[in-house]
């Protein structure tokens, strides 16, 4: 291919060109506007970086890589290129590095990308623990330290937990509901490709003049309107991550509402589908609020508005209300998909129907509704109207009721099951343990007088990691191990998986458990240095954190080695009932040659002869095949050779 052709065809060459053109265009706009107004200097690098590098370049990159080709043709009236599905499936590792509309490829792209940012964020945590191992300043100066915890949290939340759930769901949900793909495959691809832009932006903030954004992931104004340029890397990075999140959520909603297989009523949907349905509702309603809050900050910083400048009629507390109106529901955005995963894992590996299926679904809906009524519990000491604290305390505590329903129902599912302690199940049990602890400390934090003492201390750091690591990340591990055979067509190594579980479970607790103590004892969070009296606990925490961090390497090795050389997986190694397990591993390029028909609930374990779905040609056999339906691949295409 000639260079010109390469530069015109979607791909990395055109992406590089797009970046340059986007940056050039942004720079041009800045220079022209400043020249027209007669501002000095005409070449203002802060403005050029904001408009050129943080807005123009990523948009140019998205155009260059090929996310908009079809839409541009259609919008301009040019003949569109009919979709011949030649882009479906991945046949070599290179296929994962181009725009692809296959939900399974996008799912893998999501998961690998988000784990890259998980590792980046984790390394930052290691540096922080090294710095905090003893009082005083040893490795990083306070400015870098503040940057480290801010970027750590932002990557973990916006580039790992939220999108990795979208990745797992992307792979699994269409298969689970018997759909050939997502409802809007091109939008799905665009959602994915916005993510690396957001992540790279946040990482790059470290090279910005004045250092990375250092105001925490909460970016409270007016600190955030008053700090060096790095802050804008967060402000705009969040826009890309948020847009990606909203587009995916819309996609899930439409897919789940309109593309279920015949017979798949709402009350026959697996709970993972319910979980992603409710999560998507949260995302589309709440995410625009954080986008708004960050645009306010951006405008205060760049064009001189006064949203958060009390001297000019601005309101500082308003930032927190808008921010938490997203960021509290975001906690459930980061938890509900995990609840779904746990329901799948526990019922499959304990061989029992999920106890109280309908209540499990209703409790998800209850959490969505209640989740919007509790945001100000993050603001008990913020100086807001004091009466608001009481209703927020009550609603916060009431969320414990639907959450309790879920915990008790999982326990009842375990009761009298046939429990196979495979790695996903271990992570599910670890999740129940630590999420219960995180829930309990959550109830404590809801009680206003206690919260007044511990808010902004290490008690909060402990609580958030118990719910987001012991909670969400453990469900992510459970999910990755559970669907690993389906995604890759190979089995992971069970003993390495167990070792990974036990090391991370033990050292997670040794890392974050003691933080409760130092927090109540008076150590504030987000500090680069601390009083001598907390030295012993911090040393213990740091050592545990290093071992905890190292335990992740076992996971990494297991996944990479098994993906390359692991034993081939059967279609249904766990003898599960839901539809994704009834096709080959990995699934055929178009999922199903024969559309499945759903004939019963998804978890009818122990009911003689029960099946969830049948493929027409297999119908007579499946109906009489006993408790376990035969893996019916529908005679699908041979799995792509991608190893």
């Amino acid at each position, binding site marked *: 291919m000639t260079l010109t052709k390469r530069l015109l065809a979607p791909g990395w060459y055109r992406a590089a060109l797009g970046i340059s053109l986007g940056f050039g265009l942004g720079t041009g706009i800045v220079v022209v506007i400043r020249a027209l107004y007669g501002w000095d200097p005409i070449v203002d690098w802060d403005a050029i970086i904001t408009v050129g590098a943080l807005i123009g370049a990523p948009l140019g990159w998205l155009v260059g890589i090929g996310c908009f080709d079809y839409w541009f043709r259609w919008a301009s009236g040019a003949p569109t290129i009919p979709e011949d599905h030649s882009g479906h499936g991945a046949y070599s590792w290179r296929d994962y590095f181009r725009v692809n509309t296959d939900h399974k490829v996008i799912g893998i792209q999501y998961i690998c990308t988000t784990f890259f940012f998980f590792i980046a964020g984790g390394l930052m945590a290691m540096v922080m623990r090294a710095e905090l191992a003893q009082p005083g300043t040893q490795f990083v*100066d*306070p*400015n870098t330290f*503040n940057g480290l915890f801010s970027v750590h949290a932002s990557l973990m939340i916006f580039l790992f937990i939220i999108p990795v759930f979208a990745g797992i769901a992307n792979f699994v949900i269409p298969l689970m509901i018997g759909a050939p793909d997502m409802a809007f495959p091109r939008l799905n691809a665009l959602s994915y490709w916005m993510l690396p832009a957001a992540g790279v932006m946040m990482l790059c903030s470290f090279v910005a003049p*004045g*250092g990375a954004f*250092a105001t*925490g992931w909460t970016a*409270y104004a*007016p600190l955030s309107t008053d700090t060096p340029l790095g802050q804008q890397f967060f402000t705009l990075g969040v826009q890309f991550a948020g847009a990606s999140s909203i587009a995916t959520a819309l996609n899930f909603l439409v897919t789940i509402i309109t593309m279920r297989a015949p017979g798949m009523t709402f009350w026959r949907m697996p709970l993972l589908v319910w979980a992603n349905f409710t999560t998507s509702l949260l995302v589309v309603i709440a995410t625009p609020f954080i986008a708004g809050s960050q645009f306010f900050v951006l405008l205060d910083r760049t064009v001189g508005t006064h949203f958060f400048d*009390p001297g000019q009629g601005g309101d*500082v*507390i308003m930032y927190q209300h808008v921010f938490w109106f997203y960021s509290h529901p975001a906690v459930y955005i980061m938890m509900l998909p995990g609840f779904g995963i746990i329901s799948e894992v526990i019922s499959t590996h*304990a*061989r*029992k*129907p999920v*106890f*109280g299926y309908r*209540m499990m679904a209703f409790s998800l809906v209850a959490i969505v509704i209640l989740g919007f009524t509790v945001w100000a519990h993050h603001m008990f*000491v*913020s*100086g807001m109207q004091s009466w608001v604290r*009481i209703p927020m*305390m009550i609603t916060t*505590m009431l969320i*414990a*009721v639907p959450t*309790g329903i879920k*915990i008790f*129902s999982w*326990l*009842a599912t*375990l009761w*009298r*099951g*046939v*429990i196979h302690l495979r790695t996903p199940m271990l992570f599910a*049990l670890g999740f*129940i343990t630590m999420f*219960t602890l995180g829930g*309990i400390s959550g*109830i*404590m934090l*809801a009680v*206003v*007088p*206690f919260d*007044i*003492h511990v808010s*902004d201390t290490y008690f909060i750091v402990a609580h958030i990691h118990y719910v987001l690591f012991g909670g969400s990340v453990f469900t992510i591990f459970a999910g990755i191990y559970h669907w690993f055979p389906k995604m890759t067509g190979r089995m992971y190594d069970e003993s390495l998986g167990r070792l990974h579980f036990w090391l991370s479970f033990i050292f997670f607790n040794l890392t974050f458990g003691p933080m409760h*103590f130092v927090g109540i*004892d*008076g150590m504030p969070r*987000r*500090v680069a*240095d601390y*009083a001598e009296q907390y030295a012993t606990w911090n040393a213990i925490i740091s050592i545990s954190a290093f071992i905890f961090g190292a335990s992740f390497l076992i996971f990494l090795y297991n996944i990479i080695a098994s993906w390359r050389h692991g034993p081939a997986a059967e279609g249904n190694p766990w003898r599960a009932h839901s539809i994704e397990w009834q096709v080959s591993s990995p699934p055929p390029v178009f999922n199903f040659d024969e559309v499945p028909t759903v004939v019963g609930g998804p978890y009818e*374990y*122990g009911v003689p002869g029960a099946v969830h779905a049948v493929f027409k040609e297999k119908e007579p056999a499946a109906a009489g095949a006993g408790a376990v339906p035969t893996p019916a691949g529908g005679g699908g295409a041979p799995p792509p050779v991608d190893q």
Partner: protein
Amino acid sequence: MTERERVEADEAKAPPEADPRIAGEKHPVARMIGIGLLASLVGIAITLSIDWFPANASTSATKIDNLYDVLLICSVPVFVLVMTIAIYSVVRFRAKPGDMGDGPPIHGNTRLEIVWVTIPFIMVTTLAIYGWITLDDIEAKQKNEMVVNVTGQQFTWTFEYPSEKLETKELVLPVNRPIEFKIRSKDVIHSFWVPQFRLKSDAVPGLTTKIRVTPDKVGNYEAVCAELCGLGHSTMRQFVRVVPARAFQTWISDQKKAAGGGGGGGAPNAEQIFNSVGCSGCHTLAAAGATAKVGPNLGKLGDVDAKFIRTSIEDPNANVTKGYKPNIMPQDFKTKLSKEEIDALVKYLLGSQE
């Protein structure tokens, strides 16, 4: 078949007595309750015996510590309950090697589900009411309150006693006298917290927030900034002393004398400026007793003149010392400080070189 009928049918199909794994056991549930009760008692005893809090130095502290004890007593049995069922199930119902069977198809149990909705509901509602009562209690207006104005700025606290017309950097409080803190901020959000009092409130630009504290124990404590406020956040800690009433009066009159003597000439006190506008939050200066290490040591500037020092205050990026980064020091001192104040600072720094 309705849900109810289906559930009942399930149970009829799979009675617990028929399960060989628990058939030998007469009352598995009763046994678990026994184990759970014992474990809860041990757990409560352990958690209550831990010394969680820093010293208890205000009347509110006692109430909050008691509240925490109640929370512990309620929480431990919940955790123990979850753990007992989980561990018991894993031990008792773990699949034997090669067991390809399924568990009984139990889909639910309406009665049980009503129980585990109702009991947590009652529990959290009761705790919320208790929390509300405690909150009203610790925030109630007291007789004979003394007002102390607290002002936060990057990276220091200033305390003002309006009744005495006195402003200090150290917070000294008479024991057993109710205090109303009125908290403000000059720049970004800070949070005023004395862990031994258990109370905190954000200092918000544009607002005045309040907390009421009655210190009831003589001692030395620290006022800590709890809300991330920038670079020197972790250094924003200042001394708090709670002293007997008479000692407080002596301290007040000493302070007044000192302030009267120092401010007599009308010239700004450079050391005071150094400590109050935030210089000491980031820089070391032996003469002012400052030891922070965010920026360069200002007592060891080497061979510099007044012009260099002035430029460095007014335009910090003009000369950045090797090993430090630009854009870290606030760039608004030129507007924040008066000309006289900058003059005084320059003179003071020039004279403080070691």
